[in-house]
């Protein structure tokens, strides 16, 4: 019993850490540009498929190389998607809705492309660490530990970037006061595209990390989009700290509900918690109005 609970907690922590990485990315785009990216889940699958393709290349045999190549690919992809699809809409009326529609279209396009290119069968990635820690009934795979630390590492790197680099500071500036950012001469257009690109990397990394435990499927991103959205709304739209707490709460909740009631209950309970939270605190855990 005690080991079972330990397992559940560990699994909650690990999933929570990856959710945190992905939710922070979604919160970031919303916080900076007030746009909601419906293709976010498909970018998760894209990360998985990129890793799958990279592993198909003969000279790639470890995750270090995969990350080294996947990160710039995702960065460039995100940047151009923003420039080509989102940026032109920003000058129009009701652009927020239009951005939702176009990213929804992009999601469907990407998912169907995955289906055509890779087929609808599940794809899997090799575990990036073998072996496990074992003590009696207690079991913890090295892979899980690795996923946890890579996610946390990703979030810490992101935090460092926001607080210590010029581009990071300009991202925060645009999120806090777009008019003020324009006054000091920050190129807003570039910040929007950079933000989109960074969030694409974060969710794509999440896709690569989780694809080792679960599988890559053409439509697998929707579950992630829903979860990332729940976390973002639960934590408070635009609040990164709120998103972090919410990600771990959701990870734990999912893990306990799945263990106690069965996996089919997890989304129901998640939405029940989200709705209750929003009924009591419409701005989410740590969100601000507006």
């Amino acid at each position: 019993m005690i080991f079972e609970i330990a397992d559940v907690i560990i699994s909650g922590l690990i999933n929570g850490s990856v959710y945190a990485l992905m939710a922070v990315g979604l919160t970031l785009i919303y916080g900076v540009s007030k746009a909601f990216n419906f293709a976010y889940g498909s970018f998760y699958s894209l990360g998985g498929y990129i890793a799958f393709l990279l592993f198909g290349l003969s000279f790639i045999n470890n995750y270090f190389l995969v990350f080294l190549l996947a990160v710039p690919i995702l960065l460039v992809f995100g940047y151009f998607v923003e420039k080509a699809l989102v940026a032109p809409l920003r000058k129009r009326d009701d652009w927020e809705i239009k951005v939702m529609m176009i990213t929804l279209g992009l999601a469907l396009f990407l998912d169907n492309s995955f289906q055509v290119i890779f087929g609808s069968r599940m794809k899997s990635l090799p575990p990036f660490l073998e072996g496990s820690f074992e003590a009696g009934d207690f079991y913890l795979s090295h892979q899980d530990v690795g996923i946890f630390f890579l996610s946390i590492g990703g979030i810490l790197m992101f935090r460092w970037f926001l607080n210590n680099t010029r581009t990071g500071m300009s991202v925060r500036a645009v999120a806090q006061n777009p008019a003020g950012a324009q006054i000091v001469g920050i190129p807003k257009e570039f910040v929007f595209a950079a933000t989109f690109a960074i969030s694409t990397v974060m969710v794509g990394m999440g896709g690569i990390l989780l694809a080792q435990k679960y599988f890559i499927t053409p439509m697998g991103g929707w579950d992630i989009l829903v979860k990332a959205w729940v976390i973002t709304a639960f934590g408070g739209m635009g609040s990164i700290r709120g998103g972090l707490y919410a990600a771990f709460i959701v990870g734990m909740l999912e893990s306990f509900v799945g263990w106690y009631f069965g996996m089919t209950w997890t989304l129901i309970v998640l939405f029940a918690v989200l709705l209750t939270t929003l009924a009591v605190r419409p701005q989410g855990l740590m969100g601000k109005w507006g």
Partner: protein
Amino acid sequence: MIKLVDVNAYYQDFHVLKNVSLEVKKGQVVVMLGPNGHGKSTVLKSICGLVEKVTGLMEYESENITGMGSEKLVNMGITYIAENRELFPQMTVLENLKLGAYSRSARSHEKDNLEKVFDLFPRLRDRQSQSAATMSGGEARMLAIARGLMSNARFLAIDEPSLGLQPNLRDEVAKIIKQINAQGITLLVVEQNIPQITTLADKLYVLEEGRISFEGSREDALGNDHLKEIFLGM
């Protein structure tokens, strides 16, 4: 240094500035007066590249700057200081100041300018790590001006610095404007609640309904009963 010839500015379909022409010479303090909502801020914002639709001719040191965005203009030395301050609320005083030096041309001067700004506003030095949201109206105003100075500007457009200030801080604002000008920075100031600022002015403009209705020295303005009563508060 700054010259506007027949400038028109629009917000969507709303025609705000109508054939505005003005000139600010190097080293001058020029003050613009006029009723609220008649386009004074729009003049400053147009010069600083913050209004989307501007027609006519705007020149900075004989270079045509019409249609340039703020990113370029800040880099060239033209900076706007907003009436409602437009600070970054969840950032510290120091971070706000550092972002003031965002443009390429300001980066290499960041350290020197930070020292200058702290000498001008000693209180900001003591409150470097305080977040901007927790500052009083007067302190936030100082921070907005200081952030503008961090851009290494040679021309500053200062919009209603007295807005939201207690009357006893107005003298201080006038003093600071004088000090900034003494450092060789050319100023175009919109302000009518601080009589001391009009006494600093090399030239006054009055803007009414989007048009320049008066241009001249303070003495000329004092000879005009209409202006004297309405804008100079005498």
